[in-house]
């Protein structure tokens, strides 16, 4: 039904409440009037039900010009007026009689209807507001829970093995070859692998680390990749000495560097460069990874590590940290992490 929504909220409960009120109100008033209780009850029910229907409709009309509360109060006034007239008709009186000799009584009934109505409406609006506040509070709560859950998940992912078996075994296969063909290079590669594992194995990991530690880990990873990929990979690290002791959340830089190799340089078959840089400006520590790779294709995946970084940044710093991925000129990607400078991770 097209207009069914207008009567939404007109529940049995509401009807019973109005009925109860209409039964009690004449009890309180019967001492002050000459009318019988039944006469007053009849008036009260007429005014009460009419006001109730108008009030319900006023609350459900979809419009935005007049505030809902004003509509509802207006409905009480109109409802009381029409209800009083209705009561008069039920009692067998004509309109002329009501507006003539009985005007005084009509006015009193109306005023009482409006008075009671306003009290009820005020209570109703307060209750509704309370429910809304309650809902807002619950929403904020569930949002907080969601964030906590995300953080927990992010931490869990962080704790789970970050060392890809693929990477480990391929590196070892390289070492296996170098041991025979180029022992000094083999030993360099092993050293890099050990340094990488020291930082990457979950058991070895600290909850907060310095930028230096993260850069060292990334360097070890890149050294290994440079040997593995031969002439295809070149890298540069440019992190000012003064920033190296800054605290920086763990395992984020390495994720960016891994992405730069895996999704940037590796897929395109010629040579590529990766650069790690850091700078501080205006209280923000920015650490970024540039690659000269093939760039990001709009439909390519690989956002899992990135959303993990985002979740953790949000949990650690709220809105004052961010991860930004941008295209690099003439080709490649720049991925940067910005955190408040000097706030311990």
């Amino acid at each position: 039904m097209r207009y069914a929504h207008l009567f939404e909220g007109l529940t049995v409960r509401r009807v019973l409440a109005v009925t109860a009120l209409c039964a009690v109100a004449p009890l309180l008033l019967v001492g002050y009037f000459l009318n019988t209780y039944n006469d007053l009850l009849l008036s009260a029910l007429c005014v009460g039900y009419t006001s109730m229907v108008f009030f319900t409709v006023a609350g459900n009309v979809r419009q935005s010009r007049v505030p809902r509360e004003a509509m509802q109060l207006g409905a009480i006034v109109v409802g009381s007026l029409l209800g009083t007239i209705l009561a008069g008709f039920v009692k067998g009186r004509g309109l002329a009689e009501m507006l003539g000799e009985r005007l005084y009584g009509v006015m009193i009934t109306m005023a009482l209807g409006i008075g009671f109505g306003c009290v009820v409406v005020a209570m109703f609006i307060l209750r509704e507001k309370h429910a809304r506040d309650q809902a807002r509070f619950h929403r904020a709560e569930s949002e907080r829970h969601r964030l906590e859950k995300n953080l927990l998940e992010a931490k869990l992912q962080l704790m789970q093995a970050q060392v890809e078996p693929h990477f480990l075994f391929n590196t070892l296969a390289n070492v296996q070859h170098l041991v025979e063909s180029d022992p000094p290079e083999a030993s360099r590669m092993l050293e890099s692998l050990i340094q990488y594992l020291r930082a990457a194995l979950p058991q070895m990991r600290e909850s907060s680390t310095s930028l230096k530690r993260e850069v060292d880990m990334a360097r070890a990873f890149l050294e290994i990749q440079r040997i593995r990929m031969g002439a295809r990979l070149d890298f540069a690290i440019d992190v000012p000495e003064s920033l190296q002791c800054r605290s920086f959340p763990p395992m984020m830089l390495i994720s960016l560097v891994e992405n730069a190799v895996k999704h940037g340089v590796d897929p395109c078959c010629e040579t590529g460069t990766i650069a790690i840089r850091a700078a501080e400006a205006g209280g923000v520590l920015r650490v970024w990874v540039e690659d000269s790779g093939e760039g990001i294709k709009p439909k390519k995946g690989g956002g899992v590590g990135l959303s993990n970084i985002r979740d953790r940044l949000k949990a650690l710093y709220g809105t004052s940290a961010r991860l930004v991925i941008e295209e690099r000129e003439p080709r490649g990607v720049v991925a940067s992490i910005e955190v408040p400078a000097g706030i311990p991770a």
Partner: protein
Amino acid sequence: MSARAVRAVIADDEPLLRAQLRMRLARAWPELQVVHEMENGRDAGQVLTAHAPELFFLDIHMPGATGLEAAREIGSRAHVVFVTAFDQYAIEAFERGAIDYILKPFNEERLAITVARLKERLGERPPRIEELVESLAARLQTQPAEHLRWVKASVGSNVRLIPVEEVLFFQSDEKYTRVVTCDSEALIRKPIRELLDELDPAKFWQVHRATIVNVDHIATVRRGMKDQAEIELRDHAEKLVVSRAFTHLFKQM
């Protein structure tokens, strides 16, 4: 066992690992002649005609074209041995199927067994491996590239790459489309209509002629005026209008 030369091709993107396999094979199988080396799985067909190898050693993970793609192209025209560092799925599949594989780092005994088996098989027709390759390809495929994952948007003089899961909503704004995330806003030229075709329909719903919303970021949907509805988002103050044609999306189940 005849001592005739067997022609083989090695494909691996890592030069040291190609050298390593060549060296190991030279020891384990002196009659084997590595006639060509490939950095990726591309051009397997050309290599077949140019060098007429009987045997391919294919690394599964290679940039460009993978070992699986090469195997698909080779089909039954040569024997294929897969080389892999660590692929749980692949190893399981190889063990069930009749296909040879070598694990990196190489183990001398294991390589000797593979060589012995290959020597026996070389006399036979190469087995049909299409089915196995297809099932492997399906399992190793990390991300099906069917939906838009990144939005490229200009922010100042830079082109920012925004992962779609970060986007709260897209809204057309005269000539451009607004891309709104919880901490930034950007404009792109791609119209709503085109975005709708490319985005994952399970996550991105059109709620208005001009608006596509990421359902993951919806906090509440409230009924508004004239059969419309209004969406409140998490982490964002702006409210979105759901026009009448789309309110059915939010009807109670």
